[in-house]
């Protein structure tokens, strides 16, 4: 059986480049092929009126989407931004992915293909609305020219251009070819948001009909003639490497084509089905060199974090006032340590990638959050110019941050495909590989102290974070003077007014690879902060909602205050509850949006927790598709509460202990509380939506548990706590 030797060069590349996005910045050429050579066949039948809009003679409008749909609804919301200004008939609009190779050939004409950071709508809205307005102007101008009348006498509405004085009409489709030849106006005026008719109204999502029939082809559903299947086993200990495999042992197993050793993994390629590859890799005798981290455990990591708490000094992320004298004159001091564990994303569609390498080009299908980075990684791994790479865009079966910066499955698939030119190879990670080789939400230990004066008013607050940094490796520019500026969010930018504040950040990087998990720092940090604020409220003998209100009285905090008030009111904060049911509250701004939650929960005599009701509200400024915002908040409730209740990745002998959904548990429908989503868009800004809903959930729940039991939860997940009333 052939054994593929790893090349030294690819090993170096692999070691040097951790994240796809990073590669992108160093390897992608600007436009390499003249744009004119690349006029697509489509353009002849569907003239391009700006890069974003294609219009067919039958008035079908195709709006291109550069970012990727992974459940958040941007495949519909992004076209809405264009269509609002285009003044087209929405019922004739179709969404279509913008081609990555065309994007690269045309000097990044689609701006960016990255999907993450709750950025799709808010970062695209201006250029997409502008493109829509420009296209409308081009179409109107084309009609005016055909009629020989001034443009000012023509208006576009519902895909029709009307010459107002004569009431003559032309459809968009009728003038699209002429419009396509006109110059694109640079600064077309945009509508006043008050005049929007599409944006802000719920729209049915384009991607949903095919998702209920099974027609949607995710990357894992790619089917190509002659395709081979690959299964991978990666070194269980992070940083370890492959020593040897006994490929002969599985040579006779059904379908087995070959074994491909990689530096830290081994792959079996098989014909017929992934089942064959998976059976073979399970039977394959593998010897690993576990490397230097095989002794690391969750306990040793916790010890390492504790040292970070105890360090005499750590880089400062925020300093205001005079902590020492405030503490010296305190009437009451409160101190608490909080902890949050590693978490894995567990996208429902496991990591996978299909690659086809030929001497002419390389094709890949991958569930990746940035197709531009996928192209760069493919080009580099295959050692071909990026102009010979085609990334086929597909909807993702979940993303949650797992597949933005870290797309090692693409690299693996391309390496395998390169060993068998002409044969498409589909690599699928088992769920066990997914759980054990993730990019984990970092562990964090935080010590907070606060002082109250004799009147119960908070006078000082200190924070020492001992946390792993996500970005020190992949985005070093986000580390400033030792502080991971993303990792300190929630604290360094807290809207609460304490006269004296001092915050420090002790970076504690372990061998467990960290990554941006949905909401990044805004999952564990809000749990710490909003639970601690609750502790202060109780120490001050005040209502936790009112206590927060008094700390949110500055103009900068007005939107936090408003969403807090709105959610408290919707939840009926002061209204009586059924016997045994208690409330908790939390507020947080993140990704440019403002969220708050009230959770009602009860704990029975045996310590069993029941979630009754979640009220979660958001002010994200403007809203594209309100139903998608609602859905994202509903989804955040499940993602956030799953983490609070069960989420925990633990380390033993350098490796992840959990392996599948039996020991990495997910919430299911039976555990669902009633969920009420409150949309309170105040306009004037564009905030993110995919992640902000996560922030207030864990603390609101733990604050409710305190109200119910008197037990203060200072570490997650809740499954590790005995909740029986003291």
């Amino acid at each position, binding site marked *: 059986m052939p054994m593929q030797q790893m090349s030294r060069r690819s090993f170096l590349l692999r070691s040097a480049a951790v994240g796809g996005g990073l590669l992108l910045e160093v390897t992608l050429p600007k436009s390499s092929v003249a744009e004119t050579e690349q006029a697509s066949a489509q353009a002849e039948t569907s003239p391009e009126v700006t890069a974003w809009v294609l219009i067919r003679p039958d008035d079908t409008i195709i709006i291109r989407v550069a970012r990727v*749909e*992974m*459940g*958040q*609804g941007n495949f519909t919301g992004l076209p809405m931004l264009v269509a609002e200004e285009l003044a087209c008939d929405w019922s004739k609009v179709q969404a279509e992915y913008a081609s990555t190779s065309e994007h690269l050939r045309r000097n990044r004409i689609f701006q960016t293909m990255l999907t993450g950071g709750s950025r799709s709508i808010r970062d695209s809205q201006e250029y997409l609305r502008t493109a829509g307005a420009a296209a409308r102007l081009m179409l109107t101008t084309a009609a005016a020219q055909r009629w020989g009348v001034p443009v000012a006498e023509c208006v576009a509405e519902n895909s029709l251009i009307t010459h107002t004085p004569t009431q003559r009409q032309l459809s968009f489709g009728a003038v699209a070819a002429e419009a396509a030849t006109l110059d694109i106006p640079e600064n077309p005026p945009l509508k006043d948001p008050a005049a929007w008719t599409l944006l802000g109204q719920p729209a*049915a*999502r384009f*991607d*949903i*009909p095919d*998702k*209920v*029939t*099974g*027609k949607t*082809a*995710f990357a*894992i*559903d790619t*089917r190509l003639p002659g395709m081979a*299947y690959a299964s991978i086993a990666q070194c269980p200990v992070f940083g370890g490497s492959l020593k040897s495999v006994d490929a002969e042992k599985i040579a006779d197993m*059904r379908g087995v084509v070959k074994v491909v050793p990689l530096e830290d993994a081994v792959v079996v390629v098989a014909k*017929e*089905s*992934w*089942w064959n590859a*998976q059976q073979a890799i399970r039977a394959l005798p593998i010897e690993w060199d576990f490397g230097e981290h095989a002794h690391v455990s969750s306990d040793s990591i916790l010890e390492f974090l504790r040292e970070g708490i105890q360090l005499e000094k750590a880089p400062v992320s925020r300093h205001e006032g005079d902590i020492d004298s405030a503490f010296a004159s305190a009437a009451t001091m409160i101190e608490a340590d909080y902890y949050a564990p590693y978490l894995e994303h*567990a*996208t*429902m*569609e*496991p990591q996978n990638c299909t690659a086809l390498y030929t001497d002419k080009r390389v094709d890949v299908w991958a569930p990746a959050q940035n197709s531009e980075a996928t192209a760069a990684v493919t080009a580099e791994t295959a050692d071909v110019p990026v102009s010979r790479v085609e990334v086929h865009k597909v*909807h*993702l*079966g*979940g*993303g*949650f941050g797992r597949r933005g910066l870290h797309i090692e499955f693409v690299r693996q698939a391309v390496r395998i495909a390169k060993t068998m030119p002409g044969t498409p190879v589909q690599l*699928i990670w*088992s*769920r066990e590989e997914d759980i054990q080789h993730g990019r984990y939400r970092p562990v964090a230990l935080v010590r907070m102290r606060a002082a109250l004066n004799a009147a119960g008013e908070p006078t000082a607050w200190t924070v020492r974070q001992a946390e792993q940094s996500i970005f020190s490796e992949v985005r070093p520019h986000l580390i400033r003077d030792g502080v991971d500026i993303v990792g300190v969010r929630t604290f360094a930018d807290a809207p609460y007014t304490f006269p004296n504040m001092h915050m420090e950040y002790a970076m504690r990087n372990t061998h467990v690879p960290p990554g941006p998990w949905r909401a990044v720092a805004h999952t564990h940090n809000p749990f710490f902060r909003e639970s601690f604020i609750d502790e202060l409220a109780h120490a001050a003998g005040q209502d936790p909602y009112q206590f927060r209100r008094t700390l949110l009285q500055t103009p900068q905090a007005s939107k936090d205050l408003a969403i807090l008030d709105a959610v408290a009111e919707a939840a009926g904060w002061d209204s009586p509850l059924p016997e045994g049911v208690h409330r908790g509250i939390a507020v947080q701004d993140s990704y440019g949006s403002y969220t708050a939650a009230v959770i009602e929960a009860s704990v029975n005599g045996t310590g069993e927790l029941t979630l009754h009701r979640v009220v979660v509200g958001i002010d994200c400024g403007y809203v594209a598709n309100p*139903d998608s915002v609602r*859905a994202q908040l*509903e*989804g*955040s*409730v*499940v*993602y956030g509460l*799953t983490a609070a209740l069960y989420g925990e990745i633990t380390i033993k002998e350098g490796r992840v202990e959990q392996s*599948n*959904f*039996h020991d990495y548990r*997910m*919430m*299911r*429908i*039976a555990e*669902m509380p009633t*969920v009420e989503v409150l949309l309170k868009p105040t306009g004037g800004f564009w905030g993110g939506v995919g992640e902000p809903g996560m922030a207030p959930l864990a603390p609101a729940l733990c604050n409710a548990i305190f109200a119910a039991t008197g037990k203060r939860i200072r570490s997650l997940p809740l499954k590790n706590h005995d909740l029986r009333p003291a």
Partner: protein
Amino acid sequence: MISLTVNGTEHSVDVSSDMRLLWVLRDILGLTGTKFGCGMSLCGACTVHLDGEPVRSCVMPVSIAAGKKITTIEGLSTDGSHPLQQAWVAHQVPQCGYCQTGMIMSAVALLKKKPQPTDTDINEAVTNICRCGTYTRIRAAIHTAAEKSGSNNGMKG
């Protein structure tokens, strides 16, 4: 050779008898609407019907399915016209959508047994995992489909 009846069509497949039905459907027959999520009967993404009963095809040896009537999402309707599919669209249930075909197959089996399910019935029958967290809408969509068929039945007398 193993004979399978999938969505009313007979197939004869040359696979090992312990190959799991999921992979026969996906890789041999090209029916990719049935999904792989865990391979351990934990998530329900691979749910299909065997003689009308919901089963998790990722752990079902193909030999056990031989001779039985297998229904996959592709066999439910090709145009999304099944009442549950319509309710799913009406409630805009799917987010990423990866779990949804399995969810729908679980829900279809439930409604066959209990045309007017209670919330508890739903909790017991639909134990699939949705990582995107669409549970609230799933519940609402099942109730809607049940109500619709209830009122249809009523009209037909």
